[in-house]
């Protein structure tokens, strides 16, 4: 799963602590602003901001809070986002990615949807230790 991307988050733009729903809103608004400023189309901005919103909300709802970082991948012209938590992790990733799988009475479409809405998406998780999602949009 985790193919290391050497230039991921090469230049950091902003960090946000993810604790409440408002923080997730701020995170995806920052992402939308950065993409718009680089001339990315409304549809692509919306797709990636939605993906980031899903993952940031998961950090808060399932991961007990965590950190969001957005930055540039200079070498490859991607906008990179990392969402990281030290929560319970995801025991079975393949199952969790499936549309409809939820442990919390959600819709269970967030993880799979976020992957489809991103140009790059990777997830690293250790049960009991936490989850890190790295996702990127072409700019």
């Amino acid at each position: 799963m985790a193919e290391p991307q050497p230039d991921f988050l090469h230049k950091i733009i902003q960090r946000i602590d993810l604790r409440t729903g408002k923080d997730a809103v701020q995170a995806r608004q920052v992402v939308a602003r950065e993409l718009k400023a680089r001339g990315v189309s409304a549809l692509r901005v919306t797709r990636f901001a939605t993906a980031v919103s899903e993952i940031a909300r998961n950090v808060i709802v399932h991961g007990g809070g965590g950190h969001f970082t957005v930055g540039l991948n200079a070498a490859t012209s991607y906008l990179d986002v990392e969402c990281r938590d030290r929560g319970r992790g995801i025991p079975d990733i393949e199952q969790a990615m499936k549309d409809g799988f939820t442990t919390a009475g959600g819709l269970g479409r967030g993880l799979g949807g976020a992957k489809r809405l991103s140009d790059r998406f990777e997830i690293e998780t250790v049960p009991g230790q936490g989850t890190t999602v790295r996702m990127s949009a072409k700019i």
Partner: protein
Amino acid sequence: MSGVASIHLVENALLVSIQDDVTDTEIIDLQDALSNRIADENVDGVIVDISALEIVDTFVGRVIAQLAGISRLLAAETYVVGMRPAVAVTLVELGMYLPQTRTALSLSHALAQLRRG
């Protein structure tokens, strides 16, 4: 609920405007307020205005579906108005087709459809 969603009576419908930064706790207040007003004011329709929403993720999509579910149980039809084109495309990619709602281009379109019954 301050600033998050306002509910206004327009003709025989309740207009609910959802703000871009609505949160979980505010949604519960909104559902509470809306359900009471549907019952009290005996309206035929609920019009959910989402033109302020830059994105609709599965959380907000679920909120809209639940508002529609509540309205239907209280015998009001739900219209969603003001959806941005990019939001429609993204919702479909997420697999959220909002089957419980009807959509209309604008408030006046929705009111016209409600008048026709």
